[in-house]
């Protein structure tokens, strides 16, 4: 085993693991011995806030928020892709422009969808 070329790696791995785990273990032992936990109902509440915590930390977002995700893609993420496209525009071939156009059309479709859903109107 010692003659294996990977033996030194295994030793290094064990050392690295110990280097990471030993301080954690020592901290845990120290906390056990010198700072015993003193929990109470208010301290264990899900949020630390002066007001009484409401509900659960595990909440589900309503699926209707997908419209915000679409709008975010159109107006924010799109800009990230459009800027390098605009910079490199003159040097691009027909195929690249075509690909970019398809990408834009997909986003415009999302915009049309959001428009049709009426979320662009100021309520």
């Amino acid at each position, binding site marked *: 085993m010692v003659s294996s070329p990977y033996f030194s790696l295994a030793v290094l791995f064990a050392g690295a693991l110990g280097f990471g785990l030993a301080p954690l273990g020592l901290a845990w032992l120290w906390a056990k011995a010198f*700072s015993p936990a003193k929990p109470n109902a208010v301290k264990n509440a899900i949020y630390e806030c002066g007001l009484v915590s409401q509900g659960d930390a595990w909440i589900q977002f309503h699926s209707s928020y997908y419209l915000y995700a679409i709008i975010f893609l159109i107006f924010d993420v799109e800009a990230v892709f459009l800027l390098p496209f605009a910079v490199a525009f003159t040097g691009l071939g027909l195929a690249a422009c075509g690909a970019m156009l398809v990408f834009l059309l997909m986003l415009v479709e999302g915009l049309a969808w959001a428009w049709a859903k009426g979320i662009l109107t100021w309520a």
Partner: protein
Amino acid sequence: MAVDSELKIELGKQGVFVTTIEELYNWGRRSSVWPMQFGLACCAIEMIATTMARYDLARFGAEVFRPSPRQADLMIISGTVTKKMAPQVVRLYNQMAEPRYVIAMGACAISGGPFKQGYNVLKGIDRYIPVDVHIPGCPPRPEALLQAFMTLQKKIDEQPLTGAGRPRHLDAGAQGEFPVPEQGEHDLEPTSNKGVWPLPVVIR
């Protein structure tokens, strides 16, 4: 405790430093008291000034103002505690990690101050939670807060780790949760925590 203080000074002059676990432990505790980032009224402005360069609370290891009570050791009640705010203050105190300390800063926090006769101001936060250091002043100068801080450090330094007077986190019997008052019809209910603040005897 084990080593006589004069002998310790003498040894120190010779370059020999002796200490005890208790001293080392308390030195660590008092040198990294993290206050909670929590201001109530005009005293908070003085508290903020204390943390800035001119007064520099960082000299005492307490510059890390934590926005979460779960990471804080010290609550500085900096200002007027209204009856509307008192339950929130007590709840935040309950959520702080042990060992926790409280500095009541300014006339309002210790007694209600100029608003003592008002219907809506709590006449001292020590009615609900144990206060370690009271500072008078309206508002107290940053120097006064530093003085309070040094007093607290001294208090932490002198706490034995065993026996009576040990820090609350080492005392399994010490109260961890303090009852949060609720808004009653005319006043907070209860009007004070009898365990922390025994009713003063009125002599007529």
